């Protein structure tokens, strides 16, 4: 059983997102350890990108900070190797397809494996294009996380029948970012997912409070919190470890 699958065993999983290298690599290393010790079950690390078209303003700015701070995917690989020696928490990369493609798909996945990355989320690689990475992911046992959106109702079966790790269910239309209210018929889509596969589901996009997370956890086996954490990093910079840990401890699914 993979590290990701284990994270869902007998419990709801809290998945935390941060942008790698925001505001610098050392802070990212410390944050991962601190979040793992604060009750997070899976950590998703965004590879900063110049043009994050699926992100709202909070994660866009995080990408800019990380790139300004000199973060590269090579530096992230080095940092995660060090992190892997200290924690066994499942680690995911979230990356747009271009940084992976240009780095070299095979080289990228090989490095992922070497530093203990368990899975990858590529927001601009839909089902129809998944072959772009399929062979490389399989060769290095990196789980390619399937995404399901509010517009996916008629596509669910195709999207999830071979899904590995978990299924990322996008809560609502739009880009990432804090939403005061999540209006969606995500429950119907998740029901359809559950009819096709036993692979666990996790809901992301717009979940910012422990209350929202708890509500969403009624529908799914996991909840992804991103922009709300990144906002704390934006506010506190290198001193974000303590406030982020405190914020995460407020969540109980």
């Amino acid at each position, binding site marked *: 059983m993979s590290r990701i699958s284990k994270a869902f065993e007998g419990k709801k999983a809290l998945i935390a997102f941060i942008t790698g290298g925001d505001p610098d690599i050392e802070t990212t290393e410390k944050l991962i350890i601190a979040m793992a010790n604060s009750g997070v079950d899976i950590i998703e690390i965004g590879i900063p990108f110049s043009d*994050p078209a699926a992100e709202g303003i909070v994660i866009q700015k995080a990408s800019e900070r990380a790139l300004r701070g000199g973060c590269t995917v090579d530096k992230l690989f080095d940092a995660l190797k060090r992190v892997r020696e200290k924690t066994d928490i499942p680690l995911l990369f979230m990356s747009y397809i271009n*940084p992976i493609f240009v780095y070299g798909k095979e080289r990228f996945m090989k490095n992922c494996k070497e530093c203990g990355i368990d899975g990858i989320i590529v927001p601009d690689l839909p089902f129809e294009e998944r072959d772009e990475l399929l062979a490389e992911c399989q060769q290095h046992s990196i789980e390619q996380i399937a995404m399901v959106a509010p*517009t996916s109702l008629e596509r669910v079966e195709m999207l999830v029948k071979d899904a590995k790790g978990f299924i990322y269910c*996008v809560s609502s239309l739009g*880009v990432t970012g804090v939403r005061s209210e999540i209006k969606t018929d995500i429950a119907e889509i998740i029901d359809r997912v559950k009819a096709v596969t036993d692979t666990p589901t996790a809901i992301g996009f717009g979940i910012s409070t422990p209350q929202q997370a708890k509500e969403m956890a009624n529908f799914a086996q996991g909840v992804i919190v991103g922009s709300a954490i990144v906002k704390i990093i934006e506010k506190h910079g290198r001193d974000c470890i303590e406030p982020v840990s405190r914020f995460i401890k407020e969540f109980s699914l």
Partner: protein
Amino acid sequence: MHNKKGRFGEYGGQYVSETLMKNLKELEEAYLRFKEAPDFQAQLNGLMQNYAGRPSLLYFAEKMTAELGGAKIYFKREDLNHTGSHKINNVLGQVLLAKKMGKTRVIAETGAGQHGVATATAAALMGLECEIFMGKEDTERQALNVFRMELLGAKVHTVTSGTMTLKDAVNETMREWVTRIDDTHYVLGSVMGPHPFPTIVRDFQKVIGKEIKEQLLKVEGRLPNAIIACIGGGSNAIGAFYEFIDDKEVRLIGCEAAGQGVETPKNAATITNGTVGIFHGMKSYFCQDEYGQIAPVHSISAGLDYPGIGPEHAHLSDIRRAEYVAVTDDEAVEAFEYLSRTEGIIPAIESAHAVAYLKKLAPTMAKNSIIVVNLSGRGDKDVAAVARFKGVKIDE
């Protein structure tokens, strides 16, 4: 194997978020249904003739031909279309399609403002709500076009993310589309983005090359030796080239923006300097670094100031069916002034890139050979920017 849909060789594809896939499929289906439908075609042709002013003229530039002392020079006068550029061809097609699909709102990116103005125009005509996204830098260098779009009833959003130019306007329009998708069609302005856009936009623009062929056969009784067009995303170029792709003896030449020079970081010469990547929904060539971060590009022309190129051009370049050359800001401005002075035609600064290459090529060719330059737009919008470039102070 790759998704074969919408591929030009290895380029193209549909690299977008899952949320958009349903809409892209609906768009593709609707397009396939309507493109052959006689009533859609009749309506579109009616708009092209009676509203846009097609066919556009093919003008023999006698003075330039004599002065440059080589090939006979013809200009395809897309600058004379309603709204002043080739952009209206694509926009009338897409907005009509959007309306047939039951959409009530259109959104679009714009660089120089030509596509934004064209979209706002078509939306006004067909009664759709319209919102345009434009980089802050471009709203400044093309302030008049912002006012024009507003005059046409569009809402203009100033984009302040990233480099605040065309690529960021595309990012922001994508973000808007994914947020409000049911009633909204994204009128993509060039032969780029995810399938089916590169095909749809090409099909709506290929009228340019068709007319060139008909018109030239009528006056010269033969095909041109070369066709020259400027390239940002590449819609006017593919429009001019497409009809001639199988006519192997016709050279097809695309002119990219070299900005301050291809050896400097301040350029937008994608084929010359770029590498293969996947961005804005498509696999193609992009100006980017070793880590796949998209490069900040530069051109005096807001319409060519884009770090990528349409996937069909990437393919035409790889198979060497089309040639791609780079033209600097200085050369473009010089050609802008030259064409104004010599033929009394002020070209868009984008189109001036094609004119600049024409000036190099024509004297090297035999006197009985023929070059057609696609004059994609008129230059009224650029007069202030060119004055600024030359350090001339004018009060707009």
